[in-house]
C-alpha cells in the first residue's frame, strides 16, 4: 500500500481496515471439511426424469404429414357421418310416459316434435308361441320387439317409446303371419297387407 498523506479521519478508517482479522485456529479445517462434502451434483448425474417429464421430439417428412392429414380427414368424415345418422334416427330430447304420471309432469307449453312417448300395444291371439311387433319405429324387424304373454288366454303386450307422430305397424304371429291391430285404424300398404296406424301425440299438463 502506497504511503501518502491522508486526512486523519480517513487514516483512522484505513488503519482499522488494515488490521488483520483474527480467526479461530480450526477455521481452516472447518472450511476444508465443508469443501470435501458432496453437495454439488454434476449435470450428467442428475435424477432421471419420468416419461411424463421427458421431452419428446417428433420428426415427420412432408409425405408422412400428408398421410397423417388424410387419416385425420377420414376420421373427421366418419365422426360427422355418425352424428348425422344419429340425428336422422332421432335422438330423443325428452321422455314421457303415456300414463297418469305424465299429466303431473311440469308445465311443458310446447313439447318438441322429437318428444318420446311410451306407448303400450296389446293384442289377443290365443294358442300361438310368439307375437312380435313390427313397424316403422323398429325397422320392421321381427326380432326387435317381442311381445310378452300376459294371460293364458292369449293376451300379448309390449310397451315401447315412440316419437310423436304417425306410425304404421303390424303384429307378427309365430314369425310368419302378419296381422293388423283390430282396435286400430288401418292404412293401405304398397305390399298388399294393410298396416295398422297409431298416432302418438304430445300431452299438455
Amino acid at each position, binding site marked *: 500500500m502506497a504511503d501518502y498523506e491522508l486526512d486523519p479521519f480517513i487514516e483512522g478508517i484505513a488503519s482499522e481496515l488494515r488490521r488483520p482479522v483474527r480467526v479461530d485456529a480450526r477455521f481452516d479445517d472447518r472450511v476444508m471439511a465443508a469443501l470435501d462434502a458432496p453437495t454439488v451434483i454434476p449435470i450428467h448425474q442428475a435424477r432421471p426424469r419420468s416419461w411424463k417429464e421427458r421431452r419428446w421430439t417428433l420428426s415427420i417428412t412432408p*409425405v408422412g404429414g*400428408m*398421410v397423417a*392429414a*388424410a*387419416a385425420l*380427414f*377420414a376420421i373427421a*368424415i*366418419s365422426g360427422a*357421418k355418425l352424428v348425422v345418422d344419429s340425428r*336422422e*334416427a332421432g335422438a330423443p330430447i325428452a321422455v314421457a310416459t*303415456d300414463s297418469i304420471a305424465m299429466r303431473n309432469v311440469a308445465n311443458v307449453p310446447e313439447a318438441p*316434435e322429437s318428444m318420446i*312417448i311410451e306407448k303400450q300395444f296389446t293384442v289377443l291371439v290365443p294358442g300361438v308361441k310368439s307375437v312380435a311387433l*313390427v313397424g*316403422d319405429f323398429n*325397422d*320392421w*324387424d*321381427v326380432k326387435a320387439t317381442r311381445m310378452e304373454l300376459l294371460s293364458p288366454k292369449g293376451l300379448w303386450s309390449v310397451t315401447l317409446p315412440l316419437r310423436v*307422430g*304417425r306410425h*304404421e305397424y303390424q303384429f*307378427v304371429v309365430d314369425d310368419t303371419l*302378419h296381422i293388423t291391430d*283390430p*282396435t*286400430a*285404424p*288401418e*292404412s*293401405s*300398404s*304398397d*305390399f*298388399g*297387407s294393410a298396416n295398422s*296406424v*297409431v*298416432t*302418438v*301425440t*304430445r*300431452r*299438455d299438463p
Partner: protein
Amino acid sequence: MLFGVAAVSLAWWAGTDPRLTMRLDARTNEAVSAIVESAKREGVPTEPLIKKALEGASKRAAGETIVAVVRGYANDLRRAREALGPKSSEEEVKAGADALRAGVKVQELERLREAKAGQRFAVALDAMSYLVNRGVPADTASSALVRLVLASATDEQITALRADIERDIAGGMPSGLSTAARANGLEQVIAAADENGGAPGTALPSGRGSIGSTGLGVNAGAAVQGNAATGGLPNDGPKPSPRGKPKRP
C-alpha cells in the same frame, strides 16, 4: 395417397345403409341404394325410403316390388317437397308424401305455403291421410284441414278433431259429413277466440260441442260430443268402440 384415403372415406360416407345390406338381396339392395342416393342428392328425406324397403323385406315382398315401391315413394317425397317448399321439415315432407299417396291433390299442399311463419302442419297432413283412409273424400279432408292450418289451429285441436270424427264414424255418421261439420265448427271457434283477443273459453259453444250450434243446420244426433270445438283437450288418438274395428263406409 391423400386422394386415395379421401376417396375411401367418401365411399364409406356415401355407402349403402347397413340395414339394407343385411335385409335385402344384393340386387335389390343395389337398386334401392341407388334410389336412396339420388334422393339424398336432391335433398329428399331418405329415412322413409329405407324404412319402406325394410317394410317390404319384412313382408317378404319380391325384390322388384320393393324397388318399384321405393321408387314411387321417392317420387312422392319429391313432389311433396316441391309443393310444401324448401323450408318444410322432413316430417312435413313425409306427411305430405303420405297425403299425396292417399289421394290429396298437390294444389292443396301448395296452399299450405300460405301458412303463418312457424305454423307446423305435419299433424294436419297426418290427419289428412288418416281421414282419407277412413273413407273421407280426399277433397273434403284436404280442404278442411288446409283451412284449419291457415286459421292457425294447433296440433292439439287437430288431433282432437280427428278423434271426434273417428267417434262420429264409429257412431254411424257419414265420414264426409262429420269432417265438414267438425272442421267448420272448429274454424268458427278459432275465429271467435281471435275476436275475443285470444282468450280461450270466452266465446265457446257448449261443452257438448253440438254441431247444430255452429249454424250449419245439421242434425248430428245425440252421439256427437266434441273436444275440438271447446278448444282442444289433448288425447292420445281415437279409441274405437269395443264393438270392434270400425267398418269403412
